[in-house]
């Protein structure tokens, strides 16, 4: 459990502060979850590469004392794939938003899930495009307002967990910024998982999603997150009743790509 006041500054790049996130934004809580996870993992930070996409979440790598690769919109996983294949000994974690992951980067995301390369994708899902000013995302719930759906969204949203499961990710979990204690545990678990791991984090955007949908301030949005979700172990015979389940949905050991590739190279080299 993260201690209140725990000093995580050694993991942070304080020169890059103040960060770009709005007051009350959940991304700082996700970053804290990641910093807490790094503290437990005891990884050498020069052997860790944080690969960000574009958007509020994509800025996360700048605020850490590790290697940072801030890439293009939607494509963090494609960059990470080339890097990890070249340097399997490095730990690679991507930070992407929901639009980054499921709209412009949807193709890269499903193929990364399918390949099972030993990397971790943290998906910050706030249900809206924050950096560009509150437009509809592929995760915006039906009926929810954004500046491009002022009368409510007509589109069924993507469920990132279901998408990752269907595409074959071998570790899939979901948490929220309300679940302050759980998130670092899941990130540690995901990074240690020897394969492709997806951790979706529901995070609040009080500036756009909250304001446009009259959900109140950041604290009220955390309550909203709590009420929107249900830990899997708390699911009763009444089922989810429209709430989104939390926790680990899959943890499966399957052949990992870089290990298989190394074997293939060794076999070829022996033959030639």
């Amino acid at each position: 459990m993260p201690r209140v006041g725990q000093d995580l500054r050694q993991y942070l790049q304080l020169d890059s502060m103040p960060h770009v996130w709005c007051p009350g934004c959940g991304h700082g809580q996700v970053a804290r979850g990641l910093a807490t996870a790094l503290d437990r993992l005891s990884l050498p930070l020069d052997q860790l590469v944080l690969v960000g996409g574009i958007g509020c979440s994509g800025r996360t790598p700048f605020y850490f004392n590790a290697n940072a690769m801030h890439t293009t919109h939607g494509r963090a996983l494609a960059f990470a794939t080339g890097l990890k294949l070249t340097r399997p000994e490095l730990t690679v974690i991507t930070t992407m938003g929901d639009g980054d992951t499921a709209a412009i980067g949807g193709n890269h995301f499903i193929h990364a899930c399918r390949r099972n390369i030993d990397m971790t994708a943290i998906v910050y899902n706030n249900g809206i495009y924050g950096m560009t000013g509150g437009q509809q995302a592929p995760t915006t719930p039906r009926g929810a307002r954004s500046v491009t759906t002022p009368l409510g969204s007509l589109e069924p949203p993507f469920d990132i967990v279901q998408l990752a499961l269907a595409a074959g990710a071998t570790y899939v979990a979901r948490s929220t910024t309300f679940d302050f204690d759980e998130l670092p545990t899941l990130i540690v678990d995901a990074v240690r998982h020897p394969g492709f791991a997806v951790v979706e984090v529901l995070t609040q955007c009080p500036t756009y999603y909250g304001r446009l949908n009259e959900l109140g301030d950041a604290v009220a949005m955390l309550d909203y997150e709590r009420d929107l979700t249900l830990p899997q172990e708390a699911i009763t015979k009444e089922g989810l009743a429209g709430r989104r389940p939390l926790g680990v949905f899959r943890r499966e050991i399957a052949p990992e790509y870089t290990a298989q590739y190394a074997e293939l190279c060794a076999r070829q080299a022996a033959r030639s």
Partner: protein
Amino acid sequence: MKLIQGNEACALGAMRAGCRFFAGYPITPATEIMEWMARLLPPKGGVFIQMEDEIAALAAVIGASWGGAKAMTATSGPGFSLMQEHLGYAAMTETPCVVVDSQRGGPSTGLPTLPAQGDVMQARWGSHGDRPAIVLTASSVRDVYEITVAAFNLSETYRLPVVLLLDALLSHMRENVELPEVAVVDRRKPDSVEAFQPFGSTAFQAFGDGPPLVVTGLAHADTGRPRASDGPNLERMLRRSIDRLETDREAITRYRAIGLDDADHLILTYGITARSAAGAVQQLRADGIRAGLLELQTLWPFPERLVADLASRVENVVVPELNLGQLVMAVRAAVGGAAPVRHLGRADGRLFSPEEIATAVRAGAHEVSRA
């Protein structure tokens, strides 16, 4: 001597240059390059991966380059269009990598199996914003091998994405080739890891080889940290990398000259069209017309001074190319009023015959004599 295909020569050149990462997506007429790399890389411990699209292919190449590997992708027009986003990213992040574009008739799906030279301007200006660019081309299977190595060498020397333009015919053509000896340039490592600034010089540190690095497509300081609202800093960055090429323009410029010493008529062309032009020079000279050929192997940065000097010594200039007028714009700008410039273009998937080029030179000569 060995009978090899243009695309095979490209793969062999890449391996010779030390390429150890290839990511691609199948596309005619470039696919054999990736097929060869899929066979050649694993025994050397290199990485081959087929990605989900061309956008991802160049992203993976850039990721691999920051892992320290010499890296390449190969595609054709439609894939090259998709790669523009990451050509810009590679330029902004000063990432060495090689992008091969085997040109086919366009726009769009166009003429998938027929040659063209329609990507000359896209290779220079296709991504948004200003950037330094090195674009090479070749006209024979042997040259493809040698110039692929040159593409890697330049890319590693200047920390840039280098584009090599082939075409459908050259890619699929087979010639008997004696592969030449080539020099290979390796990536320059920082002199001191502690005092190293990741941007601002052509030395390169990969992820994991020193203190943590910051790499971003945002405008950034020499430390790599973003300076997203600092316009003058961005312009300084751009001018610095453009100036590096400007300073070395002569060294970067590769060309082949035939009969230029006493030429009255200059044929200026590149790539597969240079083969027809060489035939035209022979025919014209047999008829007593002193024609010469400048075959450019470096298209960008455009060798303005070389072209201007030659133009000042001839009566007319003919520029044949398999498009409706692309490199000719740079030729006209360089020549100014020194000599009339005649463009000979086509976009029908066919090559020029030597006769067609010779006829254009004769017509030019006739006009000059009437003037």
